[in-house]
């Protein structure tokens, strides 16, 4: 790819940053920057949006009392059962049980602490749903761009 052909599509997924692409000028390689590529942005947004949808869905189920708050926090912190198992040290079947509100409410503080640590929350925070969905649990300026 020639340096002049590097897409500069100002992708919002780059958060205002640029990244390095290796490309050629008159056949000779150099490193250049790109502030976005619409095809890549599409793929990234698709993944991010899928997560946002899952988080919203989870939020609604928790709010209506069908699932434990853990179900919401898992998606809000960009985990799935597999990665949460790796992070918290619980087995996947244990996590699936803990998504049940009744079982979750009986968990000891010791167990709750392991989840709280994985999300960097307090046990009190973990036990309740926030008033509204925080932007995937992390404060960033993603929506501003």
């Amino acid at each position, binding site marked *: 790819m020639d340096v002049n052909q590097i897409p500069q599509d100002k992708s919002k997924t780059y958060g205002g940053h640029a990244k390095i692409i*290796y*490309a050629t000028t008159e056949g000779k390689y150099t490193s250049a920057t790109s502030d976005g590529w619409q*095809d890549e942005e599409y793929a990234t947004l698709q993944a991010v949006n899928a997560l946002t949808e899952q988080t919203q869905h989870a939020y609604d189920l928790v709010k209506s009392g069908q699932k434990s708050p853990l179900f919401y926090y898992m998606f809000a912190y960009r985990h799935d059962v597999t990665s949460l198992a790796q992070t918290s040290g619980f087995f996947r079947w244990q996590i699936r049980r803990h998504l049940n509100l009744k079982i979750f409410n009986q968990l000891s503080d010791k167990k709750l602490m392991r989840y709280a640590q994985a999300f960097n929350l307090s046990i009190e925070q973990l036990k309740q749903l926030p008033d509204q969905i925080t932007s995937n649990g992390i404060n960033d300026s993603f929506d501003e761009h």
Partner: protein
Amino acid sequence: MTIESFQHQHTAHCESGVMSTLLKHYGLDFSEPMLFGLSSALTFAYLPMIKVSGMPLIAYRMPPKTIIRNSCKKLGLQLNMYKFSSPAQGMQKLDLALQNNQLVGLQTSVFWLPYMPEALRFHFNAHNILVYGKKDDHYLISDPVMENPVACPRIDLERARFAKGALAGKGLMYTLDLSKPINHCIDLVPLIRNAIVKNARQMQAPLPFVGIKGIHLLANRIQKLKKSRKSDQYKKLYLGHIVRMQEEIGTGGAGFRYMYASFLQQSAYYFPTNQQTLLLDAAKFMTDIGDNWRRFASRTVKLCRNLSENGFYDVAQLLHQVADDEKKLWQMLIKAMK
């Protein structure tokens, strides 16, 4: 405390970038592509048994730490590496190294680094960064994928270093061992030759999931997806996932293919004329292959937008073509290196 002479470098990939910047700081002028190539880090792997957010793992480079390990081995350098059982110890050791004016490499989790764009903050625990100083309660960080150095609060850096999960770093930090003499005039020719031949073997390994066979396998999977009973939503996410793995995760474009082409071009000038020509031709060919990878990504996204019958076939065919071209390229390189 800050290392005054430190120069930040913006690179494509975290591991090769950290190594290049670290070595440059100590007077060894190796570019990112050169270290990537010398470490035989290029690959292709399609691993359906390992899932990343529910999708098969697709990798275009060797596993984390390959570049750090191989480039040190090749250049006769030693890194002092430390892991910690307690975060407090890990932060103390970092402070100590900075007090001694040492440039420190760290393994961190992308998710917990507050300066990362949110769209890129996923649970990937093997992101490499350099620390070159500390001011008040902030660490001065040279993150290779950021244009400029950044400051990161102590508490966030600690969390990023000690995040648990797959590929957990356990606070891994590394510094260049300066007690060993550094060889500034290394003969690169044999190193480059071995690295290219090793990479060629990797790409032609007789395993279904890796290298050229792996690329064909992925192409077949895409073709089969057309008739699969999975939901359209899944198909779209699967296709998007392939593009993300190829382009989003700091590859320098086309799943590291452009970076490798740059390595071949840089390497050519160390060789006598006839081999030089062959290497330059190979670099050109690798660039064309990279262009095809990008074309594949574009068409895959187009298919994502509109799941057409022919689309699956076209995309799969293009990928088979890429695999065939890569096979030609690696055979060409093996011949050139004889």
